[in-house]
């Protein structure tokens, strides 16, 4: 496990685990976008950072030079990388792996989960509303996606705390500590392995069973594929939406004008949700450079990773006028919060529904709230950005 020295020059030595990036990455990205839209750092064994929308889009759409075999920029790069299809799959393997998941995440499929999600949000609010204060991150936002994905996978909601520990170990601690990451991956695989054994005896009406019954060219999926996909669904289904809900409520807690406007004009929710997704995109992905090429005129060499910052692309003023402002009725907003190209987030409809419902139900019950000045907001480190501690005062 390595400790990273503080960054002195962001243009040549950036680090997405530096405390300043964690606290407020936006000025760093704005500065880099002007000076060098594709920066390079020797940290993490070599990594590029595109910050313009054009550069991020070019890389996300170029599966010939950029592989998804690794989707997190970390200190170590063990071979072979841990597969979690389809997010770690390249063509031609990507499409069949994604194809089998898509029907479970269509708008129509997600609509069926909406009533349950609304009920869940209200159950959570019931627990703290009388206290006149709560931690949005730990008492509200994180429980919504975790329960919904547990339901989809047919897992006990009581295991949620374990899921959150694994995610923290894999996505945050694991950036600098391979042993912790490998242990969490092993534990998850054993956990899902036991669930699969149970379903061999008694199939369920859930996504685990569906993956076990899926056929590719007439054959069942290899168990490594099933385990990898299950790890992915659990990780990607929780941390990301938890972060988006938290960041949106953080914005509304500290921006009374937007909060009052959304209360007065609930018809703004669809554009407001897209704007929260743009301005506070939680997910930064990664690619591994496979062949030499150039991005926006900058030579890009194999042996390096790319920190694929969709959040930075979404703050590019060349595409989004007043990119640093949250505009609840922003009409033109082709943000890349769910990625671009073939790896568009398979759960985007689910995430959008959860985010919308979580904000709507919160505002119905708690129209007045503000940040608690006596306790700091803490943000997650590294790959997925969102508040992990968000104390607010209610009413």
């Amino acid at each position: 496990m390595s400790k990273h020295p503080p960054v002195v020059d962001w243009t040549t030595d950036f680090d997405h685990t530096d405390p300043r990036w964690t606290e407020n990455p936006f000025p760093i990205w704005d500065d880099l976008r002007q000076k060098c839209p594709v920066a390079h750092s020797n940290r993490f064994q070599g990594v590029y950072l595109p910050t313009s929308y054009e550069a991020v889009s070019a890389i996300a759409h170029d599966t010939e030079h950029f592989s998804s075999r690794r989707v997190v920029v970390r200190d170590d790069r063990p071979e072979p990388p841990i597969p979690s299809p389809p997010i770690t799959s390249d063509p031609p393997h990507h499409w069949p792996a994604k194809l089998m998941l898509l029907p479970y995440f269509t708008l129509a499929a997600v609509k069926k989960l909406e009533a349950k999600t609304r009920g869940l949000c209200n159950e959570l609010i019931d627990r703290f509303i009388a206290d006149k204060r709560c931690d949005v991150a730990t008492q509200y936002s994180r429980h919504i996606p975790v329960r919904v994905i547990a339901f989809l996978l047919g897992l006990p909601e009581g295991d949620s705390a374990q899921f959150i520990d694994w995610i923290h170990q894999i996505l945050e601690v694991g950036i600098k500590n391979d042993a912790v990451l490998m242990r969490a991956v092993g534990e998850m695989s054993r956990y899902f392995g036991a669930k699969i054994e149970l379903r061999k005896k008694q199939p369920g009406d859930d996504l685990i069973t569906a993956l076990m019954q899926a056929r590719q060219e007439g054959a069942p999926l290899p168990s490594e594929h099933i385990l990898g996909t299950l790890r992915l669904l659990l990780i990607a289904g929780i941390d990301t939406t938890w972060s988006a809900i938290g960041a949106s409520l953080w914005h509304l807690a500290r921006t009374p004008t937007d909060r009052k406007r959304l209360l007065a004009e609930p018809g703004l929710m669809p554009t407001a949700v897209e704007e929260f997704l743009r301005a506070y995109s939680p997910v930064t992905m990664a690619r591994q450079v496979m062949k030499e090429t150039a991005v926006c005129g900058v030579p890009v060499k194999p042996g390096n990773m790319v920190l694929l910052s969709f959040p930075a692309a979404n703050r590019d003023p060349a595409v989004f006028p007043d990119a640093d402002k949250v505009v609840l009725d922003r009409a033109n907003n082709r943000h890349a919060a769910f990625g671009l190209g073939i790896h568009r987030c398979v759960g985007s409809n689910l995430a959008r529904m959860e985010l919308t419902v979580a904000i709507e139900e919160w505002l119905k019950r708690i129209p007045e709230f503000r940040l608690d000045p006596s306790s700091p907001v803490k943000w997650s480190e590294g790959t997925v950005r969102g508040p992990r501690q968000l104390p607010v005062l209610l009413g």
Partner: protein
Amino acid sequence: MAPDKKLRISVDPNKCQGHNRCYQIAPGLFRLDDLGNAREIGDGSVPKSMEDKAWLAKANCPEMAIDIVEE
């Protein structure tokens, strides 16, 4: 745009990645298949009353998969 011109939309199926932004903005102009990918409804003709929605859908497509021709 001349008042007699009509808009016709089309979705490039090779570019569409199923973000579903167009459908959420203009469900009267787009349909989704079983995998969530979008296509234009019918021959893509846009009623006058929905022209604004057609332009909005195009402007919000992250994959730039929507084409609009004026004919």
